[in-house]
């Protein structure tokens, strides 16, 4: 296969890159569309109800109908909002969520995947930009609920970024590389998924990533029963859809990251690589929905205490243990 990524920047290679980006965008949008559908069906099943089943066979077109509805809605900008920031915020939030897809290896042939040497760092750095979008949205809306929601989001995402980052360092130490593809190859070579030697790191990652994604029990930024809808309370129509899209895009990306770092990525017997990857991604996503159906929400101060006093020390312990074991072996 022609490796378009290592080509110099010529017209054909730029076109190839564009095609690659569009294909990934469509793929991600498709995944997000059906993630939302699956979420609603799973929640329905866990909560003794049916879930969407009217639009199309088995309700399969429900999300598409929802998106269309959002598209034709009136675009309201509150009179006293900071207009420019209000419009910019959803874009700032969304773009990084899509960009991080570039480093996640979907299959063994890593079609359309940027083989970045600093993959893990790239993911963490870009995903941090989204916080700005969320904070700006809360600020620019000129609404007290949105402001509190935005500030809570910022505080939460910043606090959980640290244990999340530290939990990944263990994996990076094991593989000796920041490249996500190399990490998968290292796991394949060792014949052991990182989830077993890095069990402590995996637990920290699972909790911290749930908080990063603002999902139950860490869904405070959009705590419906307290802040009405949090930072996006003033958003309507497609700007609102962008925030939702960001959220589910990150769910997909985080699931991909989890699969790559801890569950062996696309490696696995018999089945093709992309299918293994899809199965592992779905496992993570299902786990998130399961939590959503089961748990109540943390209180904001408990959330902070938990991050700094429990997760951070655990992540550090994991890091030291990994380092010591690595040095002895």
């Amino acid at each position, binding site marked *: 296969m022609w490796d378009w990524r290592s080509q110099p920047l010529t017209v054909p290679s730029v076109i190839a890159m564009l095609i690659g980006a569009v294909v990934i965008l469509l793929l991600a949008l498709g995944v997000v569309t059906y993630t939302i559908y699956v979420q609603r069906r799973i929640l329905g099943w866990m909560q*003794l109800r049916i879930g969407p089943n009217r639009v199309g066979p088995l309700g399969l077109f429900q999300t598409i109908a929802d998106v269309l509805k959002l598209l034709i809605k009136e675009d309201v900008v509150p009179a006293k909002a900071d207009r420019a920031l209000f419009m910019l915020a959803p874009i700032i939030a969304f773009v990084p969520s899509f960009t991080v897809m570039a480093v996640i290896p979907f299959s063994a042939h890593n079609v359309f995947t940027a083989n970045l040497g600093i993959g893990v760092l790239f993911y963490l750095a870009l995903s941090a930009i989204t916080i700005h979008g969320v904070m700006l949205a809360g600020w620019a809306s000129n609404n007290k609920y949105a402001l509190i929601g935005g500030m809570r989001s910022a505080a939460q995402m910043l606090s959980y970024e640290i244990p999340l980052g530290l939990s990944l360092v263990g994996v990076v130490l094991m593989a000796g590389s920041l490249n996500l593809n190399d990490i998968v190859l290292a796991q394949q070579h060792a014949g052991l998924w990182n989830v077993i030697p890095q069990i402590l790191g995996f637990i920290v990652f699972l909790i911290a990533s749930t908080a990063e994604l603002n999902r139950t029990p860490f869904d405070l930024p959009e705590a419906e029963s307290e802040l009405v809808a949090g930072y996006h309370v003033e958003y309507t129509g497609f700007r609102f859809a962008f925030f939702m899209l960001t959220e589910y895009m990150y769910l997909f990306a985080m699931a991909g990251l989890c699969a790559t770092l801890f569950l062996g990525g696309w490696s696995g017997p018999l089945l093709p690589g992309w299918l293994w990857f899809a199965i592992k991604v779905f496992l993570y996503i299902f786990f998130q929905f399961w939590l959503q159906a089961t748990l109540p929400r943390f209180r904001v101060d408990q959330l902070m205490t938990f991050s700094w006093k429990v997760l951070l020390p655990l992540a550090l312990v994991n890091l030291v243990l990994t380092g010591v074991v690595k040095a002895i072996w």
Partner: protein
Amino acid sequence: MSLIDEKDQVRTEEMLLNLGPQHPSTHGVLRLLVKINGETITDVEPVIGYLHRGTEKLAEDLQYTQIIPYTDRLDYLAAMLNNYALCHTIEQAMDLEVPERAEYLRVIVMEMQRVASHLMFIGAYLLDLGAMSPFLYVFADREQIVQLFNEICGARLTYNYMRVGGVKWDAPPGWLEKVADFVQYLKQKFHMYDELITGNEIFLARTRGIGRFDTETALAYGLSGINLRSTGYPWDLRRKKPYSIYDRFDFDIPVGQNGDCFDRYYLHLLEIKESLRIVEQALKSIPSSGPVLGKVPKMIRVPAGEYYSGIEGARGELGFYIVSEGKDKPYRLKIRKPSFINLQLLPELLRGQSIANVIAILGAVDIVLGEVDA
């Protein structure tokens, strides 16, 4: 002279947060004006009246039987208990005999109503705390009670089932067996609720020690029901001032220890258990046949005078105070609305708390705005 000048310090402002009346967790149309300084609440002012329909005034123009459907709309989660409270007061005033079977039917529907109302509290409270599923689980169970009520009186929410001197309809054939089946079913469900909610660390962390008050405060504010019992004060009118046939049944009054939100939640769960016990005993000893409406004069006229009687409602002491001039309509009707009185404590409870606790504390006080605003 201090190093930092007064002017150079960070300027903080009090923020006025308007919670409600369309806020999803104010259980209807309560509005709270919350003054916050940073994360701390400095003052709370509940604004009520968005659902005011003037029930007490309207009652002055209605014959006694006509008032009954209006009581359905007070605490709409416990309409049977409201029905009974009014009928009971009139019966006391007129010294009427209620047939045995009617008394049993009343106790069965009242206790089932209490179960339905308490289930609803548990679901709504957990929803306030961010857990979605328990809300749908309790709705599935409550639905069965609502269906049973639908069979006995033809309505799902506003029953208008009781009459002065008895009940309007006898139980249809097979109804009592269905109730017995339901009681068995819910008893088995109990374990699930206990595991899912009481055993949840996050739930405990959010409710233990939150919104505490002691017995003196509760008594000073005139609280009743679970809000009072959660402080460890065993006050239940079914025991303390027995009405109807409650003296024939064997049941306990669960009380709390700490008077916090967790105790209030847990008492709801325990009281469901006690109510089911009462229903079980009532089903065993109910007369198999007999009239369900006693000998009542065609036109109900309460003799001149002032009458009050209170019952143990789902949210506290529910009482009707009637001033009569001997006519077929009351001269004045005053309702002792437990939700309204329990709500008085809210500003006291919230002052000095963190903003994150507002919903947890408000939810546990358990108000129904239909009753608060009446």
